[in-house]
C-alpha cells in the first residue's frame, strides 16, 4: 500500500499553513494512522517549532534529498504519538536545494516504510518550494483566510493543483481539494469586516472542509510547541479535530460559524 500524500498549501503567507500541517498530522496520528509531516519551507523552517521538536533536529529534509543522511536518521519521533514523525526543513539552505527527483525519492522511501499519510507543509508563494510540495500530492488542503487577497491566492493555487501536479500531468484524476477556512471570526463576519463562509465558497466554487475560529489558543499553543489540536478544550482544537475527521471521510456538522451567545456570567463580567 502506498502512502497518501497531502499537501497543505495556500499561496499567501501567514494564513496558517504550518499550524494546519501540525494539527492535521497530529490529528491523523490520533486517529491511529502512521504519519510523517515534512517541512518544505527550506530556509524558513518553522514546523519543528510548532511540533515542539526543534531541539532534536539532527539531520533534515535537505540532507536526505542529497543522500547525506538516511530517512531513518532524519525522522524525528513525536513526543506525544509514537506513530507520528517530523522531517524538518533545513534552515541554512534555500529552496534550490530541493530537486524533484530528490523529493520523489524521499516520498517513495516513506511509502516503503509503511506510512499511511505524508503531510507536506508547503512554503508560501508559487515558486519552486511550493511547486515541489504540491507536485506529488493526492490530496490538497488549501488554507484560506476570510479576506479577499487570501481568497484570490487560494484560487490561483487551486488552478495550479489542477494543472501543475503529477496527477494532472499523468492524467491520474484530479488532486482531491479540501478548502480549510482559518482565522474565522463570526462576530466580524456579522458586521461585514470579514468574508463569510458562504462568500468564500461562492468565490472559489468549492465547499469548505472545515472552519477554524480565530483564537488566542492557537498562538499560545504554537509558542509552546504544541499543535493546537492536542488542546481539546480550545475551540480551534475541536474545529481541527472535526476537519481531520471530515478529511478521513466522516460527516460532521460545521461548528463555530455563528456568533457565540454570551452566557449570563459573561454578560455580567464582560468577556
Amino acid at each position: 500500500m502506498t502512502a497518501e500524500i497531502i499537501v497543505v498549501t495556500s499561496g499567501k503567507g501567514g494564513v496558517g499553513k504550518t499550524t494546519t500541517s501540525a494539527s492535521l498530522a497530529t490529528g491523523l496520528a490520533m486517529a491511529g494512522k502512521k504519519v510523517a509531516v515534512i517541512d518544505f519551507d527550506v530556509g524558513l523552517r518553522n514546523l519543528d517549532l510548532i511540533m515542539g521538536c526543534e531541539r532534536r533536529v539532527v539531520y533534515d529534509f535537505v540532507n536526505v534529498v542529497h543522500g547525506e543522511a538516511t530517512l531513518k536518521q532524519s525522522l524525528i519521533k513525536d513526543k506525544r504519538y509514537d506513530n507520528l514523525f517530523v522531517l524538518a526543513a533545513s534552515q541554512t539552505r534555500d529552496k534550490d536545494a530541493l530537486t524533484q527527483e530528490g523529493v520523489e525519492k524521499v516520498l517513495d522511501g516513506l511509502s516503503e516504510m509503511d506510512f499511511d499519510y505524508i503531510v507536506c507543509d508547503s512554503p508560501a508563494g508559487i515558486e519552486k518550494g511550493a511547486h515541489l510540495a504540491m507536485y506529488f500530492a493526492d490530496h490538497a488542503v488549501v488554507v484560506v483566510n476570510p479576506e479577499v487577497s487570501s481568497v484570490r491566492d487560494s484560487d490561483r493555487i487551486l488552478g495550479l493543483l489542477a494543472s501543475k501536479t503529477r496527477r494532472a500531468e499523468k492524467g491520474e484524476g484530479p488532486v482531491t481539494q479540501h478548502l480549510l477556512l482559518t482565522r474565522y471570526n463570526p462576530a466580524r463576519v456579522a458586521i461585514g469586516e470579514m468574508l463569510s463562509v458562504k462568500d468564500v465558497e461562492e468565490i472559489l466554487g468549492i465547499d469548505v472542509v472545515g472552519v477554524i475560529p480565530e483564537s488566542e489558543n492557537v498562538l499560545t499553543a504554537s509558542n509552546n510547541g504544541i499543535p493546537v489540536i492536542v488542546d481539546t478544550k480550545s475551540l480551534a482544537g475541536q474545529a481541527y479535530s472535526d476537519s481531520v475527521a471530515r478529511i478521513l471521510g466522516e460527516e460532521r456538522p460545521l461548528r463555530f460559524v455563528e456568533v457565540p451567545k454570551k452566557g449570563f456570567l459573561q454578560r455580567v463580567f464582560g468577556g
Partner: protein
Amino acid sequence: MSARMNSPDACDLRFGQVGIACVRVRRVDAAALCDELERRVRAAPQMFSRAAVVLDLSHLLDLPDDGAVDALLEAVRSAGMLPVGLAYGTSATEALAKRMGLPLIAKFRAAYEPATAMPAMPAAPEPAAPTQPVPQPEPILSSPAGTAQGAQHHVGAVRSGQQVYARERDLIVIGAVANGAEVIADGNIHIYGGLRGRAMAGAQGDEKARIFVSDFRPELVAIAGQYRVFEQIPVELEGHSVQCWLEDDKLMIARL
C-alpha cells in the same frame, strides 16, 4: 488629461503619452544590471529613485526564461526603480509578460511577425483546455476572426492566473471565471457562471463579437480592443445576466 466636469461618466479613459524610462537589457546578468542602475540612481536620485521603468528584452538573442526575467526585475527593484512592465518584443515576450503578470508595452513586433515564428505562444500558459486541438498555424492577420471551427468549450472554473484562449472561434465557459483569470476569444464569449476576471472577445478585431455572461461582476470586458474596466460594477448589472457588444466603437452593456 483634464477632467471634464460636465461629463456624466466617472472618468475618461484615454491613451496618452507619459515619459517612462526604458531599461534595454544587453545581457542577462542581474547582478551587473543592479550595480549599473544603482549607480544611475545614486547619480540622479531625484530623477531615478522610484522611477517607473519598462524592461526591454528585445536586444537579447534569446528570450531568457521566467526565472531569469524575475531576477532581472528584482535587480531593477533592488536598485531603487520600479519596473512596471516589459516593452517591445515578440509574441514569446508577450506570453512571458502575461506569465509575469506584467503588461507588454509597444508590442508592435508581436503583431507583425509571421505566424510561423509563433510556436512559443501558447494558447494558454497552463493547460486550461486539454481537449482543444492544436491551433492551425495559419497567418492570423490574413483573415478576420471567424467561427467556422465551432466553439471551444471549457468546463469548470477558470482560476486566478489561468488564461483560456479560443483562437479564431467562440469560447464557451461552463463555470466561473475568477478574479485575475482571463478568457479570450477571437469570436464570441459565453460564460455560464460568474465572471469576476477579464473577458476579451473579438481579440483579433472582430467588432461583431459579443460577450454573454450569466453572472456579471468582471474586472474588465473588451470587444475588438474597446474595453471597459470596472472599479465599481453598476448595481443594475452586478450579478445579472448581461451581454456586451460594440455599437459605433462604443462598448455597450445591457441586461438580458
